[in-house]
């Protein structure tokens, strides 16, 4: 951590590069960050809206909030794996703190997460959804999601250096995890015998802490909040510990 502070200007540069590289080639640049989840939401709305009618009102808001969380989580994980792998050759020649790459990726993801709030607020206005003070809680919810995601990124990114195909495997697992988390569907459509599985899914508690203030217009109850925070901190501690243990081995594997 202290070494990360010495390299803070490198960290800022990596974050800026992460943010710009993705959109450099497209003409509307940063707008894609905001447009992409909106378009996905539109597709899902066309497909699922009628199916969930009666169980969910204003499905677009429900699904957009879910997608924002999911995009942040899955893109941060995949990018932090790729960034550590693509910079691993550098780590063989320079004593750069290895964690700087996943950390930069997750921070860039947080910036994109905040940017994606703009189209979300637009959607809330357009659909006449309840706009309340609970929205001021969102930075806390995003911080919890970021702690969780950083932990998962630190845990998984060294694996991408050690094994070539692990990014592909994680990509598939991500898809599975997405369907095991109530992002595009409400819990209520699940048959009772499957609900326990989703209930114990740690991603769900993080997701709901973010989605409740938007969709239900309420600050999540303290019980939910403390579970989400505990899950996030546990993920971070496990991730940081395992990264610390495996980081020394990275230069040997390139």
């Amino acid at each position: 951590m202290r070494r990360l502070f010495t390299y803070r200007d490198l960290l800022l540069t990596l974050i800026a590069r992460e943010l710009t590289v993705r959109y450099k080639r497209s003409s509307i640049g940063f707008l894609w960050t905001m447009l992409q989840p909106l378009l996905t939401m539109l597709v899902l709305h066309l497909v699922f809206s009628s199916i969930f009618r009666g169980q969910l009102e204003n499905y677009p808001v429900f699904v957009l909030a879910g997608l924002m969380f999911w995009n942040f989580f899955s893109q941060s994980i995949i990018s932090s794996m790729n960034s550590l792998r693509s910079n691993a050759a550098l780590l063989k020649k320079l004593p750069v703190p290895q964690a700087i790459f996943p950390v930069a990726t997750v921070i860039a993801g947080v910036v994109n997460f905040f940017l994606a709030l703009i189209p979300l607020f637009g959607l809330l206005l357009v659909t006449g959804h309840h706009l309340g003070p609970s929205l001021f809680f969102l930075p806390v919810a995003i911080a919890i999601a970021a702690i969780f995601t950083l932990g998962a990124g630190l845990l998984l990114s060294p694996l991408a250096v050690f094994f070539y195909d692990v990014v592909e495997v994680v990509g598939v697992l991500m898809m599975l995890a997405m369907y095991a988390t109530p992002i595009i569907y409400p819990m209520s459509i699940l048959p009772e015998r499957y609900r326990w599985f989703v209930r114990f899914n740690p991603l769900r508690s993080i997701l709901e802490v973010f989605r409740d203030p938007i969709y239900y217009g309420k600050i999540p109850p303290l019980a939910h909040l403390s579970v989400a925070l505990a899950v996030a901190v546990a993920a971070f501690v496990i991730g940081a510990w395992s990264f610390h243990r495996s980081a020394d081995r990275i230069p040997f594997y390139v």
Partner: protein
Amino acid sequence: MPAVIQLDNVALRYRLARQRIPSFKEYAIHMLRGMLTYRELWALRDVSFSVERGEVVGIVGRNGAGKSTLLKVISGILKPTRGRVSVGGRVSPLLELGTGFDTELTGRENVFLNALLLGRSRRSVSERFDSIVDFAELGEFIDAPLRNYSSGMVARLGFAIATAWKPEVLILDEVLAVGDAAFQLKCHRRLQEVLQSGATVLMVSHMGKILIDECGRCLWLAEGRVVADGDPKSVLAQYEPVTPEPELARSGG
């Protein structure tokens, strides 16, 4: 004089997999069958020495003797398998010319990127930018992409960045051999300046002349052990007769 670099019984093991295992699945299969065997290679065995502040120490040895590994251990890139390494002061490693350079970026962008990778701040790069370009003699080439540079230009730029901060510990792996005579003279002068500011220098070179000119002390590394340590002339006199042919290849060992 206090020791700036201190190595106590340092050993480093590379584990080379006998078979290439690129995938997680194969790893699991091999592990279950107990086939996960490695060929162990001790690149360093029981290396102990200390370097005092202000010393310029040269390291010689044949390819594969562990020279580059030793520099990486001292730079903090590789953690030794056994033993202790302590370095008092900021290390500026220049292990390979062009490390951390992105050939698609311009020289200017690379100066910043490279210095940041060495843990410098953006502001301190700006302050030294002109003197770096000056030393590297790049002129208006500084705004051309690095892929258009000659190897001499890349060498000058890399050396200029590594030495622009008056490093406390400067580590050079075979980098002085690249340029022409004028570049070597310049590097020699820069090294003298760096030394006057109290730096300690460790360098690997295959060129006896450079070692005799620059170093006050020389280590001979063979099969991961220090076999001679002393005055460059006498160490080289022991080393050169046992080296069968003049080493033309400049790859670090």
